[in-house]
């Protein structure tokens, strides 16, 4: 089997498996997986910048929140229906990432981390500042009646799961296509050696900006879906914590792999969920596992698989 075929089988197989699981999983894990797929889309968006272009951002919560609030505020205050609201969320993410990219890409390395972190912090405080409309940290509920997309009630477990799967499949396929496209190759070239990419005549700044915008758009889509599917928008999702999460997920699952973000979210979610059942000190277990993973699986789960078994993994 050619590598391209293997790639198709693996990723297509994952999507098919997730589809089948819709009908077989018990209710609790069914609900969890819907969440995981949306969060994995968030992580996929992060991975495009971090894993493939080598840009470590500490502010991705702002893109997730931009999508979430772009969607939720237009529903709440402008009476949008879900489809245009989702587009509003996506547009908010694209615009924000364009502005942030134009400014932050003037810096590199640790300064880039801080600049993104600062922009995200300013975004979080802005949500609080406009508390009259956003209800600040408390957030607000998007009522069931406002969550009916083309006649489909997204609060129903089955349709929620399938909507999450659609989003995840779209993000997965887009990122798969992207990294094998000429543009994706340039992203990787920038990650490996920015000076060389520049010497080869690529407009590095423009490619990096593209990467930021694509990443921001995917994260905003994830944020908009998260708010819509689970009926809540709140400032918590704009805090630093939610900028750290995608970094962790991607590093755990394997930076610069297509399937890694999903594995990272899945692993982290069940790590917290299962260990919280065993002990109240689940943070201790989570912390310990993180340390162990960096010691013994430094490339992340998918990265280790690629290093040891499947060298073809994209």
């Amino acid at each position, binding site marked *: 089997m050619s590598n391209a075929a293997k790639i198709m089988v693996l990723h297509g197989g994952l999507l098919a498996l997730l589809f089948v699981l819709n009908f077989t999983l*018990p*209710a*609790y894990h069914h*609900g*969890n997986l819907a*969440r995981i797929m949306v969060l994995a889309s968030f992580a996929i968006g992060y991975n495009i910048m971090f894993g493939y272009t080598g840009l470590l951002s500490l502010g991705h919560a702002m893109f997730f929140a931009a999508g979430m609030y772009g969607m939720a505020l237009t529903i709440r205050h402008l009476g949008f229906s879900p489809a245009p609201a989702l587009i509003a969320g996506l547009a908010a993410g694209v615009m924000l990432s364009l502005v942030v990219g134009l400014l932050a890409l003037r810096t590199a390395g640790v300064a880039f981390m801080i600049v993104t972190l600062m922009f995200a912090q300013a975004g979080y*405080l802005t949500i*609080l*500042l406009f*508390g*009259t409309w956003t*209800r*600040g*940290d*408390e*957030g*607000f*509920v*998007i*009522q*069931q009646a406002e969550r009916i997309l083309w006649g489909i009630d997204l*609060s*129903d*477990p089955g349709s929620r799961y399938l909507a999450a799967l659609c989003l995840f499949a779209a993000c997965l396929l887009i990122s798969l296509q992207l990294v094998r496209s000429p543009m994706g190759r340039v992203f990787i070239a920038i990650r490996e050696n920015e000076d060389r990419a520049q010497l080869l005549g690529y407009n590095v700044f423009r490619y990096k900006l593209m990467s930021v915008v694509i990443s921001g758009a995917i994260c905003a889509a994830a944020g908009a879906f998260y708010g819509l599917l*689970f*009926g*809540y928008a*709140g*400032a*918590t*999702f704009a805090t630093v914590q939610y900028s750290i999460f995608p970094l962790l997920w991607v590093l755990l699952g394997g930076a610069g792999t297509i399937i890694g973000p999903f594995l990272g979210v899945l692993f982290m979610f069940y790590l917290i*969920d299962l260990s*919280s059942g065993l002990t*109240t000190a*689940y*943070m201790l277990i989570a912390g310990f596992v993180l340390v162990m993973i960096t010691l013994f699986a430094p490339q992340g789960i998918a990265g280790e698989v690629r290093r040891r078994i499947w060298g073809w993994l994209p």
Partner: protein
Amino acid sequence: MSQTPKTKLTFSRRTALKTLAAGAGAATLPLWARYAGAQTSEPIRIGFQKHATGIGASYGRWYDRTSQAAVKLINDGGGINGRMVELVTEDDGTDPKRGAEVVEKFATQHNCDIGFGTLFSHVVIGSAPRAGELKIPYFVVSEGHHVASGALNRYTLQPGITDVKSQVQAMAPFVASNLGKKVTMIFPDFAFGHDHRDYFSAAIEAQGGEVVEMIAIPPTETSFTKYFPRIPRDTEVIYHVMVGPAVLTFVKELGEFFGPSRPEIFGFIDSLEAVDMASPGLEFLEGTYFWEGNPRYAQADQTDYDKTFRAAVGVDDNGASVSDPKDVSTYAHMFGCWETLHVIKAGMEACSYTGPADRALLIEAVEAMTDMPQSTAHPQGTKLFNGKTHQVFGPQYISKVTNGKLIVAHTAGIEDTLYPDEVDYTTQSF
């Protein structure tokens, strides 16, 4: 559930105050009694959403102790409908995302009958939609106005603790007539603080007073002195409310700022909940006033109910743990867990609850409740429940710091806390 007999209760609140409608509620629902035969010996499982980690952890610990004590009391008395009660505790991390996941876990993994607990408004608001979708009754002890404002759904109820709106507006008459008319408000710059800002400034204006300055403190702040110069010189009363780990710093720096010449100070005990009044730097609070949901120090006219409550939870006369006098409880809020669990018991008994199939009946039974007289089940005081808004109303206490202790100076009655209904959840379908 649509064929269940709906009870139509009409009552005026004032007359209802004088009746024992918890019992009356049960009496109006005779048809439900037929479920009584279907009892099982399985325990009733109550999912307890606990702030075990995150910024709410001080509250979570005491909410846990109070809930465990209430469950023990209920079980010692024979449980509910002859079944034992079991608390299934999960940490929500004081995070709305995890909170919603925990509610799912209660409903679909732990097979809980109901969900219960939690204080911080954002966790409640993040979790409530999932409770509504999963059709699991969700009893919150949050004191937020979110339930009564109509933002949530029919499955979310707050029968054990009063909400911010009623607490705040009940303070205005006392402040205006005893402390002063020109008020400077200091509050956290997020939704909880904004509720204080909006409801109190409206209420004080109705009393002929005015808010001369509003100082909103950003939530990430750890030092406060630099904000105090904004307090105008003609301020007669400072109204403060603060939450989170930095509360003690806030109050201490307020004292250092004013030094020997302070205006009158009125605060919400949230600013010092779980903090020892004898902490260094708090001496200046002598003679100032606090709202208390439930008086932390045992008062001279302490009821037997309060005595029972303190003993059961393990709290001494100073509101601290009996095993460690430095371990101060969240006394002004945690009674809500105790009272909520007793409301759940009364509701389940009224509808002869047998299992998850009766969840809608349970909600209707609680909605039918009105008066809850002061008793062991309601040690904080007599309550009035509004079935339409799913919110309970009760007395509010104003205490003066006297010799380092909080002594009740004024009790605002239920009448002072009422406001027009903003929602009627009973019109929503299950």
